[in-house]
């Protein structure tokens, strides 16, 4: 399953908190023209560095597909950052 939502939360030293919700699918759709360019650039880079382009792209896709469930919480003193991928 591809990631659906990335949630980022943070707390600054002064105690102010923030939240950011990134719905992945709509963002991917909006940025799809740029993604096509990025894929073409990736294929060219793979050919330049002697890597199998389509297998590498498939590997990147698998990496993207495996992201849901990842969670990173880091808290130091008064500051904190939390990123969760669902």
């Amino acid at each position, binding site marked *: 399953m591809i990631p659906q939502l990335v949630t980022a939360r943070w707390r600054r030293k002064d105690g102010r908190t923030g939240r950011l919700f990134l719905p992945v699918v709509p963002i991917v759709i909006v940025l799809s023209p740029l993604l096509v360019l990025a894929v073409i650039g990736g294929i060219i880079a793979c050919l330049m*560095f002697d890597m199998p382009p389509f297998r590498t792209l498939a590997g990147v896709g*698998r990496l993207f597909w495996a992201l849901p*469930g990842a969670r*990173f*919480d*880091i808290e*130091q003193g*008064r500051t904190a950052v939390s990123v969760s991928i669902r």
Partner: protein
Amino acid sequence: MKRKPGTVNEQRRQILQMLADGKITADEAERLLTAVETVEEPDPAAPTRGKGRPKYLRLIVDANDEHSGETKVNIRVPLKLLRAGMRLAVFVPPQALERANQELVKQGVPIDLTEIKPNQLEDLVDALDDLTLDVDQTDTKVRIFCE
């Protein structure tokens, strides 16, 4: 040893029947019922491997430093992500591996990355299922495990 719930209920019924028939005393029936229930109840300390393979690698750090204060890190990485990363690492070009080897040697870690094969990486991630690492120091606690 696993037993079907129906089997345990049947054993209980037989014990109660023997008690009703007067073949055993109340004390003996109690002991038998306790024995049956002990077999039935799962050991709470036993690992939960029966529920399936772990899905996540967890890293928990709890450190207390005088300079930077209390630091807490809680990271959960899907094992699928590690496997995907390992598969992607196979495509790293040899010249990049050579440079990485040189840097590792400079840092005093003489590991030849070109000798690591994809199936070894797969085995490494599979072996993480059984990993539990606890580091307990005065001000720092680190725990790495799969869940």
